[in-house]
């Protein structure tokens, strides 16, 4: 509403209008401020992770150390390095470098005015707190990379996730097409069976499947993690079929008039029409595979060269649980790729959740 329009209205003068605008802005800024507080609290663990990964181990165990990555301050004076302390003086707390510590008193120098010489101070220097200055420690990442052969783990994870995503996309698309476009005896019963297998807990088939892979000699290889995905995943079939039935049949029929086989129709009509849902299902599955822990744990136990990140990082955590700086560095390294993919593809993600209604 413009000001001119407001003037013509009875009972609403300029002041009333401004007051309402002001109220509206107050409400908007207070809700947004609340949102910022909540999101900061919610994402605080990421801050902890980043800060800890960039600290050296000494800072973690030091009381009075700041929360941000820092190193003890030092001051170079006359060719010597001296530690800097927070010293209470008559003029408030000062940051001075400790030149000569003694029992009941000490000699300091003021880094701000080194030319004015040393300062004698009465009191026990051991009661003083060290001063810290901001400083990043990148050594943790190098240590983790070398300790667990990180490049290898990353490559394994990527390969397993890519291959199984490809497998489930190919097979689930074909099966969903069969369920969405063709009439055949027992179709409804079979589709119900498919839906029933979605809610089946995977543990129920776990042990016999493990026994079969064991008998085939596939344990200790990637095959158990990949091959099943080439036989369609019930949930993905369901999502794709729900989308395929919304594609108008006239498009299929037009292609058939031109002499296209059913397979040809799938390739040149259905797939091009379904890019958003295929992208979404592919993304969901990729993240699922990247995240999977139980299956690689039981099939690749002891075969370190083939393990994905999830298992490698868990093993690392068991070995280095006393070194939080290394653990958090490992966490940073293992989330970089998924988080980057998420932000890069977040529009496809959100759209996929809208299209499919839910997600794994």
């Amino acid at each position, binding site marked *: 509403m413009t000001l001119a329009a407001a003037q013509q209205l009875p009972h609403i003068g300029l002041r009333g209008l401004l007051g309402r605008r002001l109220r509206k802005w107050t409400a*908007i800024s207070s*809700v*947004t401020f609340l*949102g910022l507080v909540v*999101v900061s609290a*919610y*994402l*605080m*663990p*990421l*801050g*902890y*992770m980043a800060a800890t990964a960039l600290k050296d181990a000494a800072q973690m165990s030091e009381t009075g150390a700041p*929360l941000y990555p820092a190193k003890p301050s030092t001051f170079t004076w006359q060719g010597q390095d001296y530690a800097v302390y927070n010293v209470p003086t008559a003029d408030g707390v000062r940051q001075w470098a400790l030149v000569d510590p003694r029992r009941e008193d000490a000699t300091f120098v003021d880094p701000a005015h080194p030319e004015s010489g040393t300062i004698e101070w009465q009191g026990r220097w051991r009661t003083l707190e060290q001063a810290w200055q901001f400083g990043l420690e990148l050594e943790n990442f190098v240590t983790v990379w070398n300790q667990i052969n990180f490049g290898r783990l990353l490559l394994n994870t990527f390969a397993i996730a890519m291959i199984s995503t490809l497998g489930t996309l190919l*097979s689930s698309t074909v*099966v969903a097409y*069969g*369920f969405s476009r*063709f*009439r*055949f005896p027992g179709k409804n019963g*079979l589709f119900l*069976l*498919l839906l029933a297998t979605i*809610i*089946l*807990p995977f*543990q*129920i088939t776990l*042990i*016999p*499947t493990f*026994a079969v892979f*064991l*008998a085939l000699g596939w344990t200790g290889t990637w095959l158990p993690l990949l091959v*099943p995905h080439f*036989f*369609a995943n019930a949930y993905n079939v369901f999502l794709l079929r729900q989308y395929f039935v919304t594609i108008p049949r006239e498009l299929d029929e037009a292609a058939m008039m031109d002499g296209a086989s059913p397979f040809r129709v799938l390739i040149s009509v259905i797939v091009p029409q379904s890019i958003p849902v295929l992208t979404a299902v592919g993304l969901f599955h990729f993240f699922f595979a*990247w*995240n999977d*822990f*139980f299956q690689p744990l*039981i099939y690749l*136990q002891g075969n370190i060269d083939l393990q994905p990140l*999830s298992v490698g990082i*868990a093993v690392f*955590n068991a070995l280095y649980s006393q070194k939080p700086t290394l*653990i*958090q560095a490992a*966490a940073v390294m*293992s*989330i970089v790729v*998924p*988080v980057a993919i*998420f*932000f890069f593809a977040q529009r496809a*993600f*959100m759209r996929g*959740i809208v299209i499919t209604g*839910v997600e794994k």
Partner: protein
Amino acid sequence: MMLTLARRESFWGFAFIAPWILGALVFTLLPMGASFVISLTNFDPRYPDAVQSVGFANYQRMFSDPLVLQSLAVTVKFAALMLPLTLGVSLGLAMLVNNPKLLGRNVFRTLFYMPTQIPIVATTLIWQGVLNLHTGWVNYVLGAFGIAGPDWLNSTVWVYPGLSLISVWGTGTMMLIALAGLQSIPTELYEAARIDGAGKWAQFRNVTLPMVSPVFFYNLIIALIGTFQYFTQAYVLTNGRGDPDNATLFFNLNLYREGWRYYDMGYAATLAWLLFVIVLALTVILFRTRSRWVFEGAAR
């Protein structure tokens, strides 16, 4: 002519769904039968040839096994805390990002959803640090308010709230589902409530809650089944030991230990059947009592 057309159509239909039929047979239906057979044996993967039938001994053992009882108790304790917390948080976040007064709603929505996509192992590592007694930031914040924070993950009492906090990071999906529910509520209902003199709380109580109850019901089922599938976080925190004092011996962790630490796969298969029965029973019970949870007038 018609007949051949119909037959051709059936042929193509079966041809296209063949991969799933094959997969369902080989990886689901036959293993289900086989898992019952295995549960009647003492199958040990190290000596597959020495397998012997033991009748129902595994089932008898299961009903008197203190560890099974413990793992069920652990799951129930955890679910009792985690379900209300995650359902409440997901609804709260959904209401926040649905508020028209919030600037940059899409950015907020994305940020709240993002932790859901962080791999669970990494999530566990991060929270293990955040909840640390001395160096964790949760206790640091509590300390700033003069509260001495507990040793979250090493206390048989505080480990459940601790694990529930970790679960809050996975509420992104629930939040989006709740958000879809909120956005489908007709604004006329709120207007009508306002005209009747309902305040903010009364509107929430009498319009929002009943209208999102169907969505909530769906979330509840998924989350409840999830607690019986809970494994990775518990395994990573204690390297599968179930510390402290078996307080994190979740059902699946116990199953894993029987099968892959003690190689007693006959018994593990028996436990898998118990899990199946429990999950099935819970789902059936929830659906049977749906009318108590869900306001039926809400369009779904």
